[in-house]
């Protein structure tokens, strides 16, 4: 999957080996190439306009979602092509769903919809207490049979990982198996990565970059609404200007 093809950017392949050493094999980084790097650069650049920000964020999200879907199970199958020849293909398995963490996780919903038209999508709203900074779940709505599904959990920015840890706890309360969770993420700090792989060793994580600075302006810039509107901005955006 991911790490097999990093032909165009050799420098990155060594990095992804390091990643496996530090964080274990369940954390994967989107194969980096110049193109991905450019998207990340644009998203981090403070001079990027909102319109550009959303445009390029959506592109990066699409790539991350496509790569996340590669973590889903599939089975072999043979189909007949219009030329009459046989093609040895793969079939996706049913029984998946998406779960987005409000608000910035919802930015990734469209990307998922663009790949899986009728997938079910649940939501979790996690807010942090203004005084204690402790994350707590305010709202959660899932498909009834979520415990039997693979869950694609979407959240673009992780700086401490607290919000996501809380969300996963909720999923587990709903009897979702840890190994059935795939976390889709754009930007992750080493701290968050470490605490997540430690807390949930069986969960798969896909991110596009591990970097000590998280672009915390993501939700605000993507949606164009400043903090105090909806929960998660106050949570991880404490230091943001």
């Amino acid at each position, binding site marked *: *999957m991911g790490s*097999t*093809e990093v*032909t*165009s950017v050799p420098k990155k392949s060594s990095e992804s080996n390091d990643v496996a050493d530090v964080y274990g094999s369940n954390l994967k980084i989107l*194969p980096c*190439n*110049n*193109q*991905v*790097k*450019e998207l*990340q*650069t644009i998203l*981090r*650049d*403070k*001079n990027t306009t909102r319109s550009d920000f959303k*445009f390029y964020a959506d*592109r990066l999200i*699409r*790539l991350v979602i*496509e*790569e996340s*879907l*590669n973590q*889903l199970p*599939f089975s072999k*199958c043979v*189909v*007949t*092509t*219009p*030329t*009459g*020849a*046989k*093609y040895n*293909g*793969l*079939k*996706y398995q049913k029984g998946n769903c998406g779960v987005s963490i409000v608000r910035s996780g919802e930015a990734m919903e469209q990307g998922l919809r*663009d*790949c899986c*038209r009728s997938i079910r999508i649940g939501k979790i709203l996690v807010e942090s207490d203004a005084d204690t900074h402790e994350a707590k779940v305010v709202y959660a709505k899932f498909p009834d049979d979520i415990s039997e599904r693979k869950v694609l959990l979407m959240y673009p920015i992780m700086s401490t990982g607290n919000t996501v840890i809380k969300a996963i706890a909720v999923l587990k309360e709903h009897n979702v198996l840890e190994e059935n969770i795939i976390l889709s993420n754009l930007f992750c700090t080493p701290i968050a990565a470490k605490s997540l792989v430690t807390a949930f060793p069986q969960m798969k994580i896909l991110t596009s970059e591990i*970097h000590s*600075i*998280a*672009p*915390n*302006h993501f939700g605000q810039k993507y949606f164009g609404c400043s903090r105090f509107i909806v929960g998660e901005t106050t949570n991880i955006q404490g*230091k*943001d*200007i």
Partner: protein
Amino acid sequence: MAAKMQHFDPPSSASSESDDTEVCLDEKEIFLADELCEDAEHYRRSDIGTPTPQSPRPPSTGSQRSPRSRRQRTTSLSQSSKKTSAESILRSKTRTIYTAGRPPWYNSAGQQVEPFVIGICGGSASGKTTVATKIIESLDVPWVTLLSMDSFYKVLNEKQHEMAARNEYNFDHPDAFDFELLKTTLQRLKEGRMVEVPIYNFVTHRRESRTKTMYGANVIIFEGILTFYNVDVLKMCDMKVFVDTDADVRLARRLRRDISQRGRDLEGVLKQYSTMVQPAFYYYIAPLMVHADIIVPRGGDNEVAIELIVQHVHTQLQLRGFKLREKLAHSYIGQPLPSSLYLLPDTPQIKGLHTFIRNKETYRDEFIFYSKRLIRLVIEYALSLLPFEDVTVETPQGVLYPGKRAATDKICGVSILRAGETMEQAVRDVCKDIRIGKILIQTNQQTGEPELYYLRLPKDIKDYKVILMDATVATGAAAIMAIRVLLDHDVAEENVLLVSLLMAESGVHSIAYAFPRVKIVTSALDPVINEKFYVLPGIGNFGDRYFGTEPSSIED
């Protein structure tokens, strides 16, 4: 000397017959050739009535679109078109020859095959045009470019203009021609490149603001009164024909032409003839006869001479070789894949998407949805192959971030009709406001060769990185032609990215061999091409499945 009376427009060419639609053709053709000086109008064939292979689709490109829906004009422009005589059909007693698709003008390695240049020289009204027409007719090669020296008259200043009005300006003197421009034009044509030929207006004695776009062809015929005058031009002619018609006959023709067709008076014509045309003929034109390989007495009526010329040209063309597709399909078996091939990583998603779109049971709704997903991945991957440069940006978090930026924003897409157009949306989705050009290439059902019919490219395409799109590549014949077109428009080879969903190995080899610096991007590589040039196991005809135009009897 004034314009030739019946000078048909450059990219005339011989091809299939059919006289039945002649009348309509006539009008249509004039309009489009006359009005649009943009690129490639010349590649287009007439809008209506042409016996084009409408149905069986070219398997490799899948790209086909009927050009007939375009441009139904009602206004008549025939008045102006007479002046500039921009007509792209030839008519003779037996048949009509019109601009058909342009067949390959390069060999199987994608390299230019030098066109065969026939220079025709002769006095005014000696029948050069008739000879040229007859040669084109009997040659029966699909693509001939006819270049007339009349296009290269110099622009007259006020004084000269007045002289011309008094029939005192000498149009028969070598100084009346812009030989420098002529030289470069012919040279470029010989290299198979695109040229802008000026359109000379004999009323204003100026070049019109628009130009005529022409392309090199298998055969270029270059005719005029002083075609052998310039040494460099003379060297470029592979065959030199002098049309030698008796002076009386020429004068008679000229009188008839100028008086009845150009509304001039007898006095003026005779004055011009005796003071300039005739002296110039003896002084400048007649001596050029020594350069000729063949002298054709009596002009167009001399069938034996024309037959000889045609035979020689045929032999020459055969030596240069133009049979492509078959050659392409059968070489390179078992060779290692070229390094210019960039295959998308074989992930379960990509494999799964291929499973959907290859399955003949897949409904069109799903076919479109999943092919779009796949296309997006291919395009994203292709973009990563463009040049990037290091940049450092400031983040809202107050930290500098070392990143990358595309080294150029001059990126354009070019889709090969029709299947390539399915990829346009994805390119627009990833590159804001990108320009997209189009190329229509169809397979000639008789020869099995690809032919170029239509072309629209961004201006200054030479400065762009070009993402060339076709959904599937089988033999690569269409892709090679498209790349050749881009190179002829001065796009650098390394600036071309050929992007496709599915390619056959042999096609990849052919393209990589012909154009080693073109980057080839695809999401899957199939091993075989069948005898109908379909890829196996393949996808079927991508365009048909996407647009829902499969022949109803596809079952088997």
